[in-house]
């Protein structure tokens, strides 16, 4: 049976704008993306009320301390080691700085909130040996 098809023609989505949109998104993300150092990402910083912003500059030694997997993982300038191993490795990392002529005066500790104070004390002992003057404890804000 033939019947007249009085069907409307299906309007098609006008896709001429698609490459424009995609390029726009691409440029947006190219401009706004900040590369994160490939570092320990499972640190839950404690949440506090303090309002001093942290601006990291090259004068600061960044220490990432995470407490997952039952052991404390320490990462300093890309070198990663567990804290239960001797702090000799920590000294080794510091000595590399001195050899390269980089003198750091301040240290920033990105520590997970559930760390025990004995771990923090070990880190502070190591920092004292290397003449660090100020410590900044990084945290998140509500």
């Amino acid at each position, binding site marked *: 049976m033939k019947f007249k*098809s009085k*069907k*409307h023609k*299906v*309007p098609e*989505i006008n896709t001429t704008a698609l490459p424009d949109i995609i390029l726009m998104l691409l440029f947006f993300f190219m401009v706004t993306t900040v590369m994160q150092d490939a570092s320990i990402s499972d640190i839950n*910083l*404690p949440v*506090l*009320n*303090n*309002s*001093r*912003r*942290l601006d990291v500059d090259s004068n600061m030694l960044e220490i990432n301390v995470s407490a997952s997997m039952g052991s404390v993982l320490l990462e300093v300038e890309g070198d990663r080691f567990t804290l239960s191993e001797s702090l000799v490795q920590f000294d080794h990392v510091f000595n590399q700085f001195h050899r390269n002529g980089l003198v750091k005066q301040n*240290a*920033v500790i*990105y*520590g*997970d*909130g*559930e*760390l*025990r*104070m*004995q*771990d*923090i*004390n070990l880190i*502070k*002992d190591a*920092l*004292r040996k290397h003449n*660090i*003057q*100020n*410590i*900044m*404890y*990084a*945290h*998140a*804000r509500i």
Partner: protein
Amino acid sequence: MRKRRFSGSINNGAIADVSFLLLIFFMVVTTFNHQYKLEMALSAHRDESLVRSNSKSDVLEIYINANDEILIADKPRDRLVLDELTDLLMSLIEAPDDNVVLLHIHPSSSYEQYLHVLDELKLAREHLIWEKADQVYNKSLKELNELELSIVKKEVRFKIREKEIL
């Protein structure tokens, strides 16, 4: 060529509106994570034995025990309440010379609790500076000039020392 038998039409005039709505929603809602810092000068030794320069300096002792409880002067408190802490600090700084807040920290206490205590101490200090500025100069903090600000800060000065509970 076969014609399509069933053809519906989606009215796609609304797609543009919806996409703009979504875009504006995310533009408004997105926040970037800033990181904040709590700065402390690194002490010279791990266990700072209390050095009283003379009998006029006063000490406020705060304990953090293994269960993350904060005890001040043997009275346990669940959380440091800012008002109580400012009162305690107020009586501390009345002593004329070096006043010390001594933190006794158990090695198994959590880092987060330690930072909470430091944070409360700093907030209490700022609160006291506000009050002092109001009391002495009758001005708000922003109206003080450099000299007045340094005088007020000097009045509300105390050192934070740490000691390990063995």
